[in-house]
């Protein structure tokens, strides 16, 4: 593995929580950083060639990109991607990386088709293998999971994408560190990576479900059993989805006793 990111080990209780002498009240910081990030990798735009497109659901597809100079990433990290029009107009977006770091020189992104989305629209209607785009990254460390501590993952819709990178990383490396995922989708047809989800995953369907399977929002009843089986050292919780989902899921976690300084949230937008 050629990751240029390095783990900083167990986070201290209040890393950079407040500056020396600050009058900030003694509340706990929610999100100590996990890793340091390569400035070099974050700054340089690289050409990425689309090599394969795989449909996941009616609204989401996975795009596999060859990035020969990819510096490597950790599960949960994202990148910045840009498209350029002939007149120089540029559209850039942040996307979570779906694939586990594997040193293959390839990365995968899974994109929802956003209504009127100029970038996701291009990917879903124009893109074909052989096309090139530009990427920079990997970016940001706070949502990264190096595989070093038990992980409790809560996602909704395409919020499952960075979480799947973690699931794949754990499987690919044969890690034994506990990991559980609770993922919400509108229906089985809209559940991204459904064929790949294993016994680590519990699904919640909000609009329709197979006969006999309840339909409804994620509730305390989904979260409680996961927090009841506390692994040694407790869970590090990762929440990803829309702001509405993130607010709801993080409140469920707090209500169930998960410490706020061990809940990391990535919201769409």
């Amino acid at each position, binding site marked *: 593995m050629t990751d240029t990111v390095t783990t900083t080990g167990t986070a201290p209780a209040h890393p950079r929580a407040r500056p*020396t002498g600050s009058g900030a009240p003694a509340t706990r910081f929610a999100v100590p950083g996990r890793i340091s*990030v390569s400035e070099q990798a974050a700054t340089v735009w690289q050409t990425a060639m689309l090599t394969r497109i795989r449909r996941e659901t009616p609204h989401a597809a996975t795009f596999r990109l060859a990035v020969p100079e990819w510096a490597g990433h950790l599960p949960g990290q994202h990148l910045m991607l840009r498209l350029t029009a002939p007149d*120089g107009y540029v559209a850039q977006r942040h996307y979570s990386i779906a694939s586990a770091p594997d040193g293959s020189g390839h990365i995968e992104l899974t994109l929802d088709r956003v209504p009127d989305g100029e970038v996701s629209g291009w990917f879903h209607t124009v893109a074909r293998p052989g096309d090139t*785009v530009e990427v920079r990254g990997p970016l940001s460390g706070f949502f990264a999971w190096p595989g070093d501590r038990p992980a409790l993952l809560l996602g909704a819709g395409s919020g499952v994408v960075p979480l799947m990178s973690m699931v794949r990383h754990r499987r690919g490396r044969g890690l034994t560190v506990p990991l559980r995922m609770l993922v919400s989708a509108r229906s089985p047809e809209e559940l991204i990576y459904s064929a790949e989800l294993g016994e680590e995953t519990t699904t919640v369907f909000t609009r329709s479900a197979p006969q006999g399977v309840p339909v409804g929002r994620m509730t305390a009843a989904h979260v409680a059993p996961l927090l009841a089986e506390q692994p040694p050292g407790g869970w590090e919780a990762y929440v990803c989805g829309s702001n509405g989902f993130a607010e709801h899921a993080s409140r469920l976690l707090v209500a169930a006793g998960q410490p706020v300084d061990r809940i990391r949230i990535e919201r769409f937008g």
Partner: protein
Amino acid sequence: MNVTRGFTGRPRVPHPGLPPGQYDAGEDWPVLSAEVTPDLAPADWSFRIDGLVERPHTWNWDAAHALPASAYDGDIHCVTGWSKFGVRFGGVSLDAFFAVVRPHVSATHVVAASHTGYTTNLPLADVTGGRAWIVWEYDGRPLPSEHGGPARLVVPHLYFWKSAKWIAGLTLLDHDEPGFWEGNGYHGRGNPWEEQRYSGD
């Protein structure tokens, strides 16, 4: 220039207020906090300025509201790419708070801290001279908690991660000290007009 085959993009609507690489979010106001939204009532809110100042001081909700009211009418820009035009925040200029604590001449930077423990660093010059506010109103109504209510910092000429939500205090320093995102690879200053998104930009 690396033209993307078949990409045309949205209709070009030139807007002199749109920094490079940004798009107009329209009515949307995305929420991107990395932590759990705190349950913080106005009665439990406080704001303190300390560090390199003559008289460190803590304001509670009523004391902060007793300072002269000031509003920001203008635009905000998020590092993730969206900009929002014509927002209106109501609160108090940071200058009014600084007039009470009186910064030392040696102070060059501040670290802003949230009630959640989130931090962000700024040059002192970016938060003085009518360029920064503590606000509790958005569009004439109480600032929603997910947007930083009951009160947040607003430094609209920099990327919006500098505008710490649930603001708890500022510490004045004679040096720069990276905050939360700055320690996670983001730029030290974050000027949207120079596209200072990540460290090294």
